Every structure is written in structure tokens, then in C-alpha cells.
């Protein structure tokens, strides 16, 4: 038996991967924040654009929000394309 379990161990079984992925996703979707998220991210993005516009002229598409959800923590990545400094007259 130990011989077989040794050969079998090489890579994790895909069924376990499936279960893990579902547990992470469903824990997130069942929570109250899961449903609300669809609404808060666009608003967050609008607020970020508005805040930056107070100081720098940027377009609606110059802010890029990315998210990566994990089981322990999630990360939010926000990239802002700033216009080149020094050309403000035309355009």
C-alpha cells in the first residue's frame, strides 16, 4: 500500500483542487459582502478618479482596478496612468 501511495502522491488530485476552489469561491459569494461587491467596486473606482482629478487631469479609463481573491486575504491592485508632465496647454 505504501508503495502505491508513494506513486500516487506525485501530484495533487484534481478533485481536491476542485473542492478547494469551490470552498473559497462560495465562502466569498455567500457572505454579505459578496453580493454588495458588484456595486461597491464601480463606485470605488469613480471616487478614485474624482479624487485624483482634483490634482491631475486624468481620463475615465486611466484608472485600472484589479482584484485577486485568496482564502486568507484578497488584494486590490489599482494602477493609475498619469499624463506626462509639462504639456498642459493644448489637447
Amino acid at each position: 500500500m505504501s508503495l502505491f501511495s508513494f506513486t500516487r502522491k506525485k501530484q495533487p488530485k484534481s478533485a481536491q483542487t476542485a473542492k478547494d476552489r469551490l470552498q473559497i469561491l462560495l465562502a466569498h459569494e455567500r457572505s454579505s459582502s459578496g453580493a454588495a461587491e458588484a456595486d461597491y467596486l464601480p463606485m470605488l473606482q469613480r471616487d478614485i478618479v474624482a479624487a485624483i482629478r482634483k490634482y491631475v487631469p486624468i481620463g475615465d479609463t486611466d484608472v485600472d482596478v484589479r482584484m485577486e481573491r485568496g482564502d486568507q486575504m484578497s488584494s486590490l491592485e489599482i494602477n493609475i496612468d498619469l499624463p506626462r508632465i509639462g504639456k498642459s496647454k493644448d489637447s
Partner: protein
Amino acid sequence: MTTEPKKNPPLGRVIVITSGKGGVGKTTSSAAISAGLAKQGFKTVVIDFDVGLRNLDMTMGCERRVVFDFINVIQGDAKLKQALIKDKRVDTLFILPTSQTRDKDALTKEGVDKVLTELRAEFDYIICDSPAGIEHGAQMAMYFADEAVVVTNPEVSSVRDSDRVLGLLSSQTKRAETEGSDPIKAQVLITRYDETRVENGEMMTVEDVLEILAVPLLGVVPESKAILKASNVGTPVVLDGPSAAAQAYEDAVSRLTGKEVEMRIQGERRAGLFKRLFGRAS
């Protein structure tokens, strides 16, 4: 990210993956076909039209990275490029997930048209993963298509529903309603084909299905353990190592792009005699 259009203008072909019946492999096929096209170097986006029952994201393995979705874009809450998720395995592949919280009425014809028009200008292939059924969501997925892949199992209710969908494709779509435009090019993709059962007379043959539906054949995907394994780990089957199913999808993809590929049906169970006697089916 500067995605300037390459030297050649993008093809901008919209292909709907549809079936009528649920559970026949639309999303699996959408994932495999879009990944296959991207692997061949075509800039490809796959869109989930199943509003409220998002699943393409899991099949593609990007469920943790969804921020904005198709509905956010239609309603103006996000720009298209913000909602597109870039695949981490193939850099010409993008996913546009749908909303898990809205309902399908959020898919307006004008909204879908606007998004598809924008995508046509940037992508070679736009793959629309249709929901099951023939109602609003499915109609929106097929309405603007140039081509259709009708996923069919060799089984009575699936073939019947495919026939119904073929009828809708030739009547309820933009190409059908626009005078002078070519009809949608519809092809059937037979999935879950089990050659052993066909040989035993327990399953309709490819010829049987084609005779009934009377449309060209895009490919035959054998029943394969590789499909569930790929779905478990969130990888399109064509990116998950060699298998009979992956080969069948690769061939189908080549045919979609206009290449002539000989139709070969290779089941997983067609192992050699030795393997059949002594080996384990894998």
C-alpha cells in the same frame, strides 16, 4: 498595457457557442475553443452570456480575479478594458465574465451591440458562451453572431434542441433579419461521443446526427476523463496536457480558422489490445 492593434486589422469574427439543452458542454467548449484559437496566435476573447449563473470564470480558472463584468460595461459602470481579464497562460486570451448578481434583462440588445462592436475592432475572435435555453440570454448571445457552433450530444433531446436552435439561428438573428447579408455559418460540434457504445449500437453515430440536423460538422469530441479533470483545476482542456478531447478541440479550432483537417474520431477507450487487457483506462 498598450494593446495597439497589430499590423493586420483584427478579424473581428463573432462566434456563438450554443445548444438549447443544458449540460452538453457549451462552457467547456467555449473555454477549449477560445484557448485553442489564442494558442494559435489569434487574439481571442470569450464572453459569458449566462447572467446570474456565472461559470465560465471557474472553467477558465480566473474566478478570483473578477472585478468588473459584462453587465457593468453595458450599464456604463466600467470601461470594457477594465472588465477584460487577461489569461495568465496564453497572452492573446481574454475573458469577459458575466454578473453573478444581476438578472438577464440587464442584457440589452443595444448594450451587447456596443460591447461587441468595440471588441470586433480589437480581437480576431469573439466567442460568446450562450446560456442554456432559448430565451433572452441565449437570444442575445446569438443575435450578432457571424458563426455558430451548436454543441450536441448524440442523444435524442440534445439533437432535438439543437435542431430548434438551428431554426432560431436562421430566423431570429441580425444576419437573418438583414437583407442581403450572408446567413450565420452554423456547424455542429458533437461532444461526449463514445465510440464503443456507437459500435455496440447503443449510441447514434456521427452520420445519424448529421443526417438529422443537416449542417456541416465542426468536430467530434470523445467522452473523456480529461474534461472533468481540466474543469476541476480551472484549465481549458487544450491547455491541460495531451488528451483525445484536447486533440479533438484543437482540430475543431483549426477547422474554424479555415484549415482543412481530416476528421478523426479517437476515443480514449480505443487503446491497444495490450493496454486493454493489462493496463488501466486512463
